[in-house]
């Protein structure tokens, strides 16, 4: 895997790697902070998977293996930046300060969103592949018109890189020199579709043909992802235009809890990637270089347990919405068909408790 093109600052064994262009700027404390984020988000993911198995969630989209990509990118963002995620960006949502239970409202099927996107400057989950890339470019055009030193960042997968919307977003970002970072998590799979079916050449190279730079970063190396994303965002904020970042990583788990990856990929592949685990890697660095004690790691584990317990309680407390709420916020203003529906539902005596 380690190829010339890949920006890497930390080896799979947790050893520093020199790079001609990028150096890690983070202190030990900051790196520990990233470790904490990753450990917690992994716990969050595990808890969610088990909640799903226990019938408490309709679905879950795990991120095991992608923690470095998401935490590195999420922590590189400034509070004033705005991100446009897919359905899998739990790590980014975490970095944006979104309460974990809010992330699960979509998966408990009690909301089509889950949080206030304006408050957290993190858009609602986008399920239709590619759609959000254009929203991000439009938002970035708004930043330009406001003369603000801010950036937009959008997330998408290797699979979504084939969608017309993603590609049109490249065109527009270049044409308007929009302050935007395209962050592609190439986790090697789009459900059962290998990323080699989406592109015969490394994905990051696609950017150049549209007129802006592409970088491939080791997506399992949180230090590298952080630096690469930070620089791209900074460049965007000061008029440097778009960058495509391909975070080369791996989806260790299933596509979602509905998926059965044994049907399409071999165990050996998963084994190889186990050795590149993003959390273990940074843990090794912290232990060796900063002499972090195992008790400190344990504390994070305990913190994660507390988070998970609260998450579980919050999810279980999330009751079925009152059906009448389906009529709320469909329109900004009164609408006769909405009123008619609301009236019908009331007449039928349907309420939150009726199922």
């Amino acid at each position, binding site marked *: 895997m380690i190829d010339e093109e890949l920006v890497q600052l930390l080896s799979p064994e947790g050893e520093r790697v020199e790079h001609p262009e990028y150096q890690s700027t983070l202190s030990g404390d900051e790196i520990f902070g990233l470790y904490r984020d990753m450990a917690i988000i992994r716990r969050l993911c595990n808890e969610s998977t088990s909640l799903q198995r226990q019938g408490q969630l309709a679905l879950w989209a795990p991120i095991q293996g992608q923690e470095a990509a998401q935490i590195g990118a999420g922590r590189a963002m400034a509070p004033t930046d*705005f991100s*446009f995620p897919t359905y899998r960006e739990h790590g980014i949502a975490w970095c944006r300060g979104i309460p974990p239970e809010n992330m699960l409202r979509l998966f408990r099927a009690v*909301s*089509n*969103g889950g949080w*206030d*996107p*304006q*408050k957290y400057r993190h*858009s*609602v989950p*986008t399920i*239709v592949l590619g*759609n959000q*890339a*254009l*929203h*991000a*470019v*439009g*938002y*970035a*055009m*708004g*930043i*330009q*018109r*406001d003369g603000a030193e801010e950036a*937009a960042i959008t997330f998408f997968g290797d699979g979504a890189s084939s969608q*017309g*919307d993603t590609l*049109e*977003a490249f*065109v*527009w970002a270049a*044409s308007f020199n929009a302050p935007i970072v395209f962050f592609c998590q190439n986790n090697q799979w789009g459900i059962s579709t290998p990323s080699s079916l989406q592109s015969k050449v490394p994905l990051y190279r696609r950017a150049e043909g549209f007129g802006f730079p592409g970088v491939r970063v080791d997506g399992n190396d949180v230090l590298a992802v952080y630096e690469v994303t930070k620089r791209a965002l900074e460049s965007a904020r000061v008029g440097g235009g778009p960058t495509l970042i391909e975070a080369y990583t791996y989806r260790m788990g299933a596509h979602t809890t509905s998926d059965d990856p044994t049907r399409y990929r071999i165990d050996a592949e998963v084994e190889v990637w186990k050795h590149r685990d993003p959390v273990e890697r940074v843990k090794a660095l912290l232990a060796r270089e900063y002499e972090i004690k195992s008790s400190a790691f344990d504390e994070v584990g305990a913190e994660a347990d507390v988070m998970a317990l609260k998450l579980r309680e919050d999810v279980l407390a999330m009751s079925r919405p009152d059906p009448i709420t389906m009529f*709320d*916020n*469909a*329109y*900004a*203003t009164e*609408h*006769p*068909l909405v009123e008619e529906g609301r009236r019908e539902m009331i007449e039928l005596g349907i309420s939150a408790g009726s199922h």
Partner: protein
Amino acid sequence: MATTTMTMAKALNEGLRRALEKDKKVLLMGEDIGKLGGVFRITDGLQKDFGEDRVIDAPLAESAIVGTAVGLAIRGYRTVCEMQFDGFVYPAFDQIVSQVAKLRKRSDGAYTMGLVIRLPFQGGIGAIEHHSESPEAYFAQTGGLRVVSCSTPNDAYWMIQQAIEHDDPIIFCEPKSRYWEKGEVDLDQAPHGLFETVVRREGSDVTVIGYGSTLKTILRAADTAATEGVSIEVIDARSISPLDLDPMVRSVEKTGRFVTVHEAPHMASIGSEIVAELTQRCFYSLRAPGIRVSGYHVPYPPTRIEEDYRPTVDRVLDAVDRVMGFEN
């Protein structure tokens, strides 16, 4: 009352100008809308006066025009997207039905999808294929959207401003064949609310309901019918979704008979909808079932024969005859 005479194209241009003046967050975006002023010149001179940042010439991709307008809306802008022709709105269909229509709901009201999609629609200008489509029913079927249509310069001037000010996303259908027709525009006061149905001509025998380009056809048919002693009440739906049904109900309760007219095929159309609603609401007043005059269920034909595809005065009169003489 300061009224002045202008074409519908000019009225739209003036309406857009006024919206740009009133609110700095209003942007226009579309293909060739800058120096060229759009292929119909609706945005003529606006880029010159408001700059390239507010009147934005777009690269050629409709999904991107709508998709970026969504992002701009999230940032607080109100973008008026111009689709060059009706037939070119389909590449943006996904963004419209999956995002524009649903984002307010998905965000629990945090997002306001303040955007207008201008659609020069319907045929009648002798163009080549894809330039004469009537896609309004697709959008009317979609919860989360609103669809309106103007049929006079005065409505064009006011409705475009009302649509831009409105907080819901609006598909704004402009009958392109009427762009060059003149009418009085009252610059001081809007004649009606954006979502109001208007009776354009009173009558007592049959109610004929249309919108956009068909209004003129219907009014002509009413003239002819009058000479034959048949009194047609002419209704301009104006708001295609939601429909403002009450004025239609009042009319049909009076006349007992009605006909709907549009250029789109009749299958699962606005005509079907009006018939279904009015049948339910006016069941005992109806002396005949409502009849739909529409385009045919085939691709829009080469335009040398489009006048036999679009509802003509003859076809409207034929339908009026049929509801007048209805026997099962």
